[in-house]
């Protein structure tokens, strides 16, 4: 067996100790096909629920996920802005187990033996599969931002995996001195949730406007342009005039270095003291994808028709980790892809029908109280990958009513999608 897991283990060692749960893989009854899902987030939880539900018990579904509660990244910016309680972001797996019969194993997957078709657990033991689904989200690329690594994430949080990092960032913002500086190092493409950093800036600005109005926000950005840019910039001007400064690549926004000890950010050699430094580094597919050698470069190439790996047909890779084509890396997209993969997997093992793949995505962002915007598109499968077939985006100058309605819609979506994931 070739478990190529060195690099992967080093990033997870810190949490490993508390998570080594005993392996509780159901006794094999031989007859039932086994689907193992790694990662209980937007893609994985949805896939596990749909496969278990639609196969009506004909498929044995095991979900491997280290955390007992999943905190959604989506709406975590709203928590930073004070629009949402932290607890409202947490969701547990009880229902997947009790209502759908999913076998939930709280452990890390540390490797995949694709010849033997088994997944290795950190807590010991191998879980056999007939089909494997990987939806592990993202990991950060080491050394992407000079001076930053996960070793300093408690001084300079990324808060780009939700949970204690998000709470830490909020606490740091609250502790900023009057007139202090909140800095963000924005990530290069492609990364999870294209509007995420800019929604975050909006939410931090909302908080500061109320609590620390002379504070300023500085964004160092390696990208020329970003998602919903005109809408965000219009909103920043209307709500937070003079507070937010974005340094793009032309002015060195891509040439940054941080010093977590000194709490400094250097942009193109110009060193500044900052009070909060939210570093969102470049990203790559979750470590288990690399451990399973299913990546090409940073991401995992997949077929658009059923999200199966282009390197191994018996593995499906969903969500942020997948290089699928045009869809953004979003929770909505991961959930959409999971349903297509689930339909294909259930059809492969039962007599139910497989229908043509179809995907969609809508991402809402909140700029300020009752000022919501959205962008969405339809997608379909092609041999080259998932392709967009048209969509919409909010416009500058919409009425207050429309913006408030858009925000309410996002709340409706949050309730629906979390129910769709966890039952």
């Amino acid at each position, binding site marked *: 067996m070739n478990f190529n897991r060195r690099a992967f283990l080093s990033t997870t060692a810190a949490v490993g100790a508390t998570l080594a749960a005993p392996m509780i893989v159901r006794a094999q009854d031989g007859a039932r096909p086994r689907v193992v899902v790694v990662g209980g987030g937007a893609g994985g939880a949805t896939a596990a629920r*749909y496969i278990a539900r639609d196969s009506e018990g004909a498929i044995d579904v095991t979900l491997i996920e280290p955390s007992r509660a999943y905190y959604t990244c989506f709406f975590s910016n709203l928590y930073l802005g004070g629009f949402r309680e932290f607890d409202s972001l947490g969701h547990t797996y009880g229902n997947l187990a009790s209502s759908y019969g999913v076998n939930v194993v709280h452990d890390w997957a540390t490797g995949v033996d694709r010849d033997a078709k088994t997944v290795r657990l950190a807590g010991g033991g191998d879980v056999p599969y007939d089909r494997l689904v990987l939806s592990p989200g993202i990991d950060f690329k080491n050394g992407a931002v000079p001076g930053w690594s996960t070793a300093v994430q408690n001084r300079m949080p990324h808060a780009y995996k939700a949970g204690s990092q998000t709470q830490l960032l909020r606490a740091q913002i609250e502790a900023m001195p009057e007139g202090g500086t909140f800095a963000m190092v924005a990530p290069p493409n492609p990364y999870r949730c294209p509007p995420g950093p800019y929604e975050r800036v909006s939410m931090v600005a909302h908080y500061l406007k109320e609590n620390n109005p002379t504070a300023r926000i500085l964004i160092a950005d390696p990208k020329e342009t970003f998602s919903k840019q005109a809408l965000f910039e219009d909103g920043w001007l209307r709500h937070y005039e003079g507070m937010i400064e974005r340094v793009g690549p032309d002015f060195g926004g891509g040439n940054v270095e941080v010093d977590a000890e000194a709490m400094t950010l250097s942009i193109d050699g110009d060193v500044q003291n900052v009070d909060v430094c939210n570093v969102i580094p470049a990203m790559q597919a979750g470590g288990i994808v690399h451990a399973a050698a299913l990546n090409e470069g940073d991401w995992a190439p997949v077929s658009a028709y059923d999200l199966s790996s282009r390197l191994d047909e018996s593995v499906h890779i969903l969500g942020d980790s997948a290089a699928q084509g045009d869809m953004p890396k979003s929770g*909505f997209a991961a*959930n*959409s892809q999971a*349903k297509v993969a689930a*339909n294909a997997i259930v059809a492969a093992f039962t007599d*139910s*029908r497989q*229908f043509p793949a*179809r995907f*969609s995505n*809508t991402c809402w962002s909140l700029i300020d109280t009752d000022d919501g915007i*959205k962008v*969405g*598109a*339809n997608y379909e499968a092609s041999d080259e990958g998932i392709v967009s*077939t*048209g*969509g*919409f985006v*909010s416009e500058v100058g919409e009425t207050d009513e429309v913006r408030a309605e858009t925000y*309410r*819609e996002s*709340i*409706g*979506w949050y*309730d*629906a*999608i979390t*129910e*769709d994931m966890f039952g």
Partner: protein
Amino acid sequence: MTGKVIPSCKVAALVAGTLSLTPFSASADAENGERLFRACAACHQIGEGAINRIGPQLNGLVGRLIGTVDGYDYSDTLSEAGADGDVWSEAALSAFLEDPRGYLPGTSMVFRGIRDETDRTDLISYLIQEGGTSEAAAEAGPESGPSPEIAAILAVEGDVAYGEYLSSECTACHRGAGGEDIPSIAGLAPSVFIAGLSAYRTGEREHPVMNMVASRLGDEEIAALAAYFEAQTTE
């Protein structure tokens, strides 16, 4: 533009007997009513040429038997109220508009309600101004039934298994039961469901998300979804 409230012609049995019959102010503000009607316009038409959409057309509403517009497929609740001879009095309308599901439990109208009494009075005044009362409507002739576009979809037999697959796109936003901020679509009557999607598809009803969703639904897909969602319960 201030419309005078025409006194309701025949205030008949109220659906619920406990309501106090507050007389409607004669100086109701129909302009405010017009503004309030925008929320209804997503589902209802009123005035000349009004036809059934997600909700029935509202011409000649005051004085009309509840749940009796031709060609509209009401919930059992409304059909039964009409069969019992219950009529839309202004007071009944006011109570319904304050809390549709509280007043007529089981109604398929997804609407939060209008809390403010003056607003309700203004809106009813506008409804009368635009759509007249029931005798006036009777003269305008009966309603024409579903449009050819909707009739074509109604003629397709929905494939429930396909509908179930397609529904997985919808459940990212529409919850099985409830849903304050996005209406629930579980258990909707096919005629209502189809009229809704068809109006989004043609663009007659505007909503960026639903226009996008409906843009790639063919008649077969809409019929399949209608068949699937009809069978879903709202608990």
